[in-house]
C-alpha cells in the first residue's frame, strides 16, 4: 500500500481521534494504581520503577489484544508506541502516589 502521509491524514476521522482520549485516561488510572500498589507493597528503588514499567506494558498489552484486536495502527494514529508510552505526566503521578502510599503505610505507624 503506497499511501503518502498526505493521503492518510486526509482519511482520519476527527471525532474518533478525539474519542481516543480515553486511552490517556486509562494510562493515567493504571499509573495511579501502580503507584498505590508499589507504595503499599513497600517496593523501593528500582523495584518500584520495574512495577511501573510492568504495569505500563500490561495495560498496553491488554488494550492491544482486547480493543485493537492486534491491529493498533487501525485504531490509534500513533501506532504501537502511542499505546505503550505512558507520558511524562503519568510517570510523575506514579511517583507521587508511590511516595504517598509508601509514606502512609510504611513510614508512619
Amino acid at each position, binding site marked *: 500500500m503506497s499511501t503518502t502521509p498526505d493521503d492518510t491524514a486526509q482519511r482520519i476521522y476527527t471525532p474518533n481521534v478525539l474519542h481516543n482520549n480515553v486511552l*490517556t485516561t486509562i494510562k493515567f488510572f493504571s*499509573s495511579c494504581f501502580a503507584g498505590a500498589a508499589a507504595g503499599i507493597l513497600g517496593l523501593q528503588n528500582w523495584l518500584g520503577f520495574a512495577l511501573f514499567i510492568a504495569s505500563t506494558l500490561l495495560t498496553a498489552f491488554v488494550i492491544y489484544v482486547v480493543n485493537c484486536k492486534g491491529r493498533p495502527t487501525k485504531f490509534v494514529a500513533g501506532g504501537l508506541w502511542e499505546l505503550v508510552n505512558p507520558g511524562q*505526566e503519568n510517570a510523575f*503521578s506514579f*511517583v507521587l502516589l508511590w511516595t*504517598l502510599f509508601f509514606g502512609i503505610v*510504611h*513510614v*508512619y*505507624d
Partner: protein
Amino acid sequence: MSSNAVSLYLDPQIRDWVLFPITLVMILVGILRHYVVILLQSQPKKLSRAAIREQRALVRAQILRATSAKSPIPPTYYKSISQHLSKAFNDGTYLKDGPPEGDAPSKPPNPLTDPAAMDGMMSGMKTQMVMMVPQMIIMGWINFFFQGFVLIKLPFPLTLGFKSMLQRGIETPDMDVRWVSSLSWYFLNFFGLNGLYRLILGGENAADASRDMASPFAAASAAPQAPGQAQDYNKLFKTERDNLEFAEGLYSWVGNDVEDRVLRRYGKLP
C-alpha cells in the same frame, strides 16, 4: 517490613496535618486557577459580517487547496469553485471595506493603537500572572508554616546534590537524602497533579503547571496573532490567488479511473 539502620519514627499527626492538607490545598488551588482564568478571559471581539466573510473566504480557499492532489471533489465542481474564488480575490469582492479604489495602499492597523490587538496581548499576560501568583503564594505558605521537620521518606534514592533543596531547614549533614521536608512534597504534587487536573477539568485546563513553565513566552507571543487584524487582506488574497492556480495544476480527482480500479479488483481486467 525491613528496617534499615536509621529508621525514623514520625508522628502520625504530621501525616494528618501536613501531608493531606498540602495535597488538598494544591488540588483546590489548581481548580481555582482554572476557573479564574476562564472568568478573566474577555469575550472575543465580535467582528462585523464583512470582516468574518473576509476571513472565511481565505479559509475556504485553503481548505480547497489542502486536498487538491487527491481531491474528493469531481473536476467540474473543483474548477468552478477554484475559478470563482480566484476571480473574487482578484476583484476584491470579499474585502471588508469593499474593492480597493485606485491605487490607495491599505495600511494594516498599528498593533499598539488597535484596541482589539491590545486585548489579545492583555489576556495573555493576565493568564500568565494568574498562573504564577498562586504558585508563589503556596510556596511561601509552605516555607512559613511547614518548615524544619521531616515529612516523608522517598521510596527511591537521590544524589546528595538534592539534599540542600529537599531538606531545607533540617540541619543534619548525615541524614539520608530520602528523608525530605515539606517543600519536596510540594514539588512532587506540583508535577504529579497534572494528570488529575486533566481528568477533572478536561484536556485544555488552565491548572496545568508544567505547561506554563515550558512555554511562558510562546503563549504571550501567540496571543497577539490570534485576532489577525493587523493583516492586509488585499495582499493575502493576491497570494492566495497564486496558490489556487498552483493547486489547480496539482489537482487530480480520487475517483479518476475508479471504474478501472474496481474492475481490476474483481479480476475482470488484467
